[in-house]
């Protein structure tokens, strides 16, 4: 297999000027990541700064309704509110060991931006965040958090002014600033070695889940479910179970408003293979290979591509990729809030929505783990607007 490929997907489709920093990063992954000193320092940060390990929470009410044992992996309880910090602490620390003094990152909803800014502040690094101008307006509270944490937030005015354009701009910045700056990529996508690096840093989710299930139930789960945008929370949950044939793996893409032909963020289900942002992967694109705008009510899933390892797991049938619509996600959001007392992120609500809407596909009487990748505090404004419009909130 070619370097950096997962089956047919992955690779390094980048300008030649980015090959040296990507090779430098590969070398750092090989030489620094496995060292005891690095591992110990990252472990301390994850434990005592970010709040690992995260709980595995049983859901008694929904379990009774669904006829399965439903568990939630509580990444929502981490510092900065989502799984993103697992990745940013690892990459920031790695960058520091590499002698870099600054981080650049893209962000859509702002969660990765906040997690990067927090890691940079903690480790004494400079931080520049590129964010689509549309998202800067939609996600004002996260912009405020990033700025408070000392990051410079640059609104991106080009293209669709959302996440994909923020990635373009961050890549451009990295070309020019590669000597001093590490690109802290936010998801398990992009050119090799990012899909592997981010996966390895997020695998703590699946490893903990595995140990917690064995400790609590004496067995592995029958099914693990996670939402997939770029797919970092999902690959972190899935990867440690890939070799366990008894564990069914379900990724959930965002179907958008749901009517045929609507804008969506479901490239595995509705896209075709192509090349964007340094990777061969499943993409939303027109017949001429131009990238199409994506849409999801959850900004964190709003991306026209997906990490190449997911494209591969889907292609070989090891994982199943379903979809949930905006409104199904909002229903799941309310269900979890009312029935179990947990306010999930709209991204994670997609994973839960698939479970609630696919009861026939669940392992009856078995154990289902949903990765609750983030908390819903950031989504109050969106949820208020939608529910108010629908008359469910006075």
């Amino acid at each position, binding site marked *: 297999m*070619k*370097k950096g490929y997962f089956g047919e997907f992955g*690779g*390094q*489709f*980048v*300008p*030649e*000027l980015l*090959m*040296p920093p990507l090779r430098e990063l590969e070398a750092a992954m090989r030489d620094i990541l496995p060292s005891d000193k690095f591992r110990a320092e990252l472990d301390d940060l994850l434990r005592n700064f970010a709040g690992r390990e995260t709980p595995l929470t049983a859901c008694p009410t929904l379990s009774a309704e669904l006829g399965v044992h439903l568990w939630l992996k509580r990444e929502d309880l981490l510092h900065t509110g989502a799984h993103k910090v697992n990745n940013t602490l690892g990459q920031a620390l790695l960058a520091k060991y590499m002698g870099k003094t600054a981080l650049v990152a893209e962000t859509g909803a702002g969660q990765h931006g906040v997690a990067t800014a927090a890691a940079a502040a903690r480790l004494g690094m400079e931080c520049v965040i590129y964010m689509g101008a549309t998202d800067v307006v939609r996600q004002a509270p996260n912009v405020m958090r990033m700025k408070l944490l000392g990051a410079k937030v640059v609104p991106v005015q*080009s*293209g669709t002014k959302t996440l*994909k*354009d923020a990635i*373009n701009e961050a*890549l*451009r910045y990295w*070309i*020019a600033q*590669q000597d001093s700056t590490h690109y802290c990529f936010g998801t398990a996508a992009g050119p090799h070695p990012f899909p592997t690096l981010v996966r390895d840093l997020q695998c703590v989710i699946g490893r903990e889940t595995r140990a917690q299930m064995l400790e609590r139930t004496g067995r592995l789960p029958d099914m693990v479910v996670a939402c997939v945008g770029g797919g970092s929370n999902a690959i972190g949950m899935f990867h440690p179970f890939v070799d366990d044939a008894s564990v069914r793996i379900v990724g959930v893409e965002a179907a958008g408003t749901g009517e045929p032909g609507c804008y969506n963020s479901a490239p595995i289900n509705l896209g*075709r293979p*192509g*090349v*964007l*942002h*340094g990777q061969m992967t499943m*993409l939303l*694109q027109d*017949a*001429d*290979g*131009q*990238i199409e705008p994506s849409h999801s009510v959850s900004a964190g899933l709003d991306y026209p591509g997906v990490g190449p390892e997911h494209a591969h797991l889907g292609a070989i049938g090891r994982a199943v990729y379903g979809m949930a619509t905006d409104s199904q996600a909002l229903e799941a959001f309310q269900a979890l809030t009312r029935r179990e007392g947990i306010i999930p992120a709209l991204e994670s609500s997609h994973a839960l929505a698939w479970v609630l809407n696919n009861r026939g596909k669940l392992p009856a009487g078995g154990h289902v783990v949903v990765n609750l990748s983030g908390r819903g505090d950031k989504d109050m404004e969106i949820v208020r607007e939608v529910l108010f419009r629908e008359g469910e909130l006075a």
Partner: protein
Amino acid sequence: MSAAIHTDMNDMLPEAPVSRLEARVTAANAAGRPALVPFLTAGFPTLDRFWEEMDGLDRGGADVIEIGVPFSDPVADGPVVEAASLRALENGVTLRWILDGLKARAGRYDAELVLMGYYNPFLQYGLENLAADAAAAGVAGFIVPDLPLEEDAEMRALLAARGIDLIALVGPNTSEERMAEYAAVASGYVYVVSVLGITGVREGLPPEVPQTLARARKAFRLPLALGFGIKEPKQLEGFPDRPDAVVFGSALLRHIDAGNSAESFLAAWK
């Protein structure tokens, strides 16, 4: 002019197929000047004016014309080329429109033609069809900024089978070893990126350009074309080793966007 050059080159090297691009740059150098390589985004500023400006560039003495194939997400380009690209897409430009237009005009241009664009539109067109249609349209080379050596074998082989060059790109951070890897497969000319950055957006050329050119000179037997940030001849004054060709992109697009003709841009270089 081009027919004579081809004959000369073929006489010199009777066995090896000679790259039309290499021959054209070499001929300009033999005339005591760098080859002029303007870049123009297809369908910019309008569909009709693009073809008019193509004629103008050809009349104005362009040796090679790089035709930009627009893409929605041009990561190696600065704001000027990106804006031109998005405008061209709004104008309805597709790769098929470009190739059909060139086929209809086959034999019209004295300049050699190169298509420059990102990989995905080429990939979706189908690489085999692309090579066949590009050959029929008279295209002599491709530049694909997001297709480094690790990924380019299939496209390079399909193009080579039709006598079309895939131009290598190197820059200030490309090591001699890496350049040597490119040199083993490269043909046509070598695109030397002047700066660690994107197209356009700067006034002067960075001081390390002569070192980059010197490293490339050691690694490649092919002509070197310098691009990114080139606007006027005086930028090259004082270079110990002048590039064999100069590429203008953003500066030319700005010139055209301000209502001037492409032909008048080239006048300063003649």
